[in-house]
């Protein structure tokens, strides 16, 4: 924004700088002026780069029909949550933004997001997608994609899907590859990717209500959690799991045919071109079903939007269409959240595979307490795998630490 400053007229820059300071973010002083309160003729939408083109398709139809401008502001996906939280209260945020469902707790706690009414459309979506955006009986976002991890199998190296973890390891050994099963771990751990294995021991992160929503009561302590920890240590000692395997290393190794299995999501598939793949459920390690987390991507409406009507209209009547959802699917490779669009996308066996694994999955908790869990969870798992920590004691300490972090 400072590109046009003649060196002499320094105060010029000053004027701009001062207006920018009000927004506490100089990238967006431009948006602020265009999203003039009450002007009602322009809808500001934050998108990230991958989704930009797809949203443009829906926006174009909307613009033609309503004679309004839809202004897409491209941002880094990682920055969106923080910027949205910071800018909505100042009145400079967007009317709409893309986001993930697990931001919900933070967004509602801070009062920056408005509920939307899907009306009869609610039934058109895959159930878990709407469920994920629901809090206290209110829907806060329009879902457009669901994503979950699964077991990706290189059919050339393993002909059949393993039903248990031990079977998978055995199949990996039979294939004679350097790795039996690849899971991204790293020194900080990756509890998201390890979650299906954890649930197979009957240790979900939080206690769930009957309707699928989460309470703030931790459920991964006690005997099931300790059993999972002990299992992690055994796998680490046997060399099946290793904290040195980062995302890049895992993907690279699978691409080179160094393992028949990798546990991962649809975002990896692009890099496995040329391999014959099959998508299977994550094998159970502890006997119970292995349930991965489902993440749902969607659009949020700002609580301070002056264009709430336009924003809701755009979402409910333009984004919740097969056309828009399929365009977003093409852009991001995640299965659509609208049931009819998902069905169409299922023509692709990979997408169908992830969708069918997702049917047994659980939404990732979006309660604010979840924020206090990640930091302890991953590192503890990593320390147990690497042998740096004694499993049961480390797991119990982790539970205590999380509990005190939630309580504070």
């Amino acid at each position, binding site marked *: 924004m400072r590109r046009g400053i003649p060196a*002499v007229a320094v*105060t010029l820059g000053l004027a701009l700088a001062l*207006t920018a300071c009000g927004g506490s973010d100089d990238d967006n002083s431009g948006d602020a002026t265009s999203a003039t309160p009450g002007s009602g003729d322009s809808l500001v939408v934050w998108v990230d780069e991958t989704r930009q083109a797809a949203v443009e398709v829906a926006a174009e139809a909307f613009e033609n029909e309503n004679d309004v401008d839809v202004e897409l502001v491209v941002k880094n996906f990682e920055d969106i949550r923080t910027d949205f939280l910071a800018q909505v209260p100042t009145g400079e945020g967007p009317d709409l933004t893309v986001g993930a469902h697990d931001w919900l707790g*933070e967004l509602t706690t801070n*009062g920056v997001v408005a*509920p939307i009414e899907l009306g009869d459309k609610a039934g058109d979506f895959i159930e878990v997608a709407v469920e994920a955006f629901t809090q206290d009986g209110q829907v806060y976002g329009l879902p457009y994609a669901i994503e979950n991890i699964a077991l990706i199998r290189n059919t050339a190296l393993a002909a059949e899907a393993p039903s248990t973890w031990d079977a998978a390891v055995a199949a990996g050994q039979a294939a004679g590859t350097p790795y039996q099963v690849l899971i991204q771990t790293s020194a*900080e751990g990756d509890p998201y990717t390890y979650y299906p294995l954890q649930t197979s021991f009957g240790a979900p992160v939080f206690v769930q209500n009957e309707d699928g929503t989460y309470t703030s009561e931790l459920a991964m302590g006690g005997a099931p959690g300790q059993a999972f920890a002990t299992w992690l240590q055994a796998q680490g000692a046997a060399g099946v799991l290793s904290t040195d395997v980062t995302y890049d290393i895992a993907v690279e190794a699978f691409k080179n045919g160094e393992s028949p299995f990798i546990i991962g999501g649809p975002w990896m598939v692009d890099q496995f071109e040329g391999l014959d793949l099959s998508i299977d459920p994550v094998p159970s390690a502890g006997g119970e079903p292995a349930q991965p987390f489902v993440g749902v991507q969607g659009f949020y409406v700002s609580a301070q939007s002056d264009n709430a*009507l336009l924003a809701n209209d755009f979402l409910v009547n333009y984004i919740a269409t097969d056309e828009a959802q399929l365009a977003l699917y093409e852009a991001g490779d995640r299965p659509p959240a609208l049931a009819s669009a998902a069905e169409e996308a299922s023509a692709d066996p990979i997408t169908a595979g992830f969708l069918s694994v997702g049917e047994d999955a659980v939404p990732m908790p979006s309660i604010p307490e979840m924020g206090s869990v990640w930091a302890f969870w991953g590192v503890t798992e990593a320390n147990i795998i690497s042998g*740096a920590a004694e499993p049961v004691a480390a797991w119990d300490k982790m539970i205590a630490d999380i509990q005190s972090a939630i309580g504070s």
Partner: protein
Amino acid sequence: MPTQPTLTGDATDPTGSAGGTSGPPGVRSRERDRPARGPVRPGVFVKIALMAVVNALGVFGVLAAWREGHMGILAAMVALVVVADWVYFSRRTLPLKYILPGLAFLLVFQVYVVAYTGWVAFTNYGDGHNSTKEQAIEALLLQNERRVEGSATYPLTVVERGGALGFAIVEDGEAKVGTADDPLSEVRDATVDDDRVTEVPGATVLSRQEILRRQAEVTSLRVPVSDDPNDGWVRTQDARTGFLATPTLQWDPEADTMTDVTTGTVYKATSDGSFRNDEGQRLNVGWRVMVGFDNFRTAFGDERYAQPFVKILVWTFAFAILSVVTTFLLGLFLAITFNDTRVRGRRVYRTLLIFPYAIPSFLAALLWSGMLNRSYGFINQVLLGGAAVPWLTDPWLAKLSVLGVNLWLGFPYMFLICTGALQSLPGDVLEAAKVDGAGAWRTWRSVTLPLLLVATSPLLISSFAFNFNNFTLIYMLTRGGPRFADASVPLGHTDILISMVYSVSGLDGTAAKNYGLASALSIVIFVIVATISAITFKRTKQFEEIS
């Protein structure tokens, strides 16, 4: 300017002859009294044009601030524009003409930021206390208005009746119209087309464009379905369909309370920025309030942090001091080596040595973190022949790695400044030392080094301050890990104070955000760095006097 007679009053003004475009002020005021003066110099027009631009931008800024309702910024803008005009058109403000731009930038980028941080440190700004009280109330009411379970959605038309907006819906084939004060009632002679009301006698149907122009009114409109408020009201979010909703929270502005309609619980506004009931339960959206020294108390008083804080403080000092010392020594050594005229191809070496300096440090740190991976890293695999040295996961080795990578990143800078300082050493002093019979070592120790230190010590101090807050390196290389085994907070052996702030305040997404606490901790860090810098600068000054 030989043609211009210098007047006695300006004789002492050193800038008088260098007045440039506008001329020295004192001269011009008297020039005007002399009608025989030639045409106005072009510089004046340039100045007026530039000032016009400055003023135009200033007015733009004022208008923008007004529109956004930022009164503080508006006042600051007005003040700055007035001051700028006064400074550049007055004849008595010559020094200010040079200082003002810098001063203005200092105000905006330093003073404002520091003051803002200071203010945040005394508030509870963070998750759950993100905005103003009005917005919190608005959000609570918005979040607690429920669609009546199992109720239908109605095709909805927005109408205007008697100056008030209203809704027309179709229920069971009958058209009903109502406004905010007038519950929905049947209208017999309304035209219904395709399940939607298209015409209502005595009311105008709003066009899409009119609706969009008044969308805030439309979305906030609640049309009761009957005289009994408990029956709920019809509202809409897209002006196409309406639905039946009832509030579960009621706001009483007089008593400053929120009442839960379903349970009758009363939540009172409290001084900590939230609504609480008698049992202490709070509603989830709060607002920002001043909390005094609470954040500082948490920073030092929370026992979960006390123990790691001491360890981290010690390591921060060790890291900053060792980083400066090692990079300086290596840079100095190389500078001396390549300053020797006997070294061939010095320019090539010098260029190569700047290389680490050219790579962005966060990228370099990331690369290094990959190269130091225990099983797959370049260092272990290629250089050490497959040895599994836990460079980044053993507490001591991780510290060593951090220092090593920082050495790699930092020595080119020291090399540059040492080369510069060495080349500017007066040759006669060295010559004199030689004549006096001093050997190479003695010359270096007693002449070169002291002179070098005088030139570089301010840079060493700033380098210390930089490394004290070298967040990028820590975050990209180890993320503070390996984690303390005995602490109950997510902090690790290589965390320095600034990365501790980042994690404690939840900015990394692993805890609830707390900008107030983060600001308080950064103020503590600022005080530490400022104190050390002040002391060292004072000592450097003594040092300078001795030499």
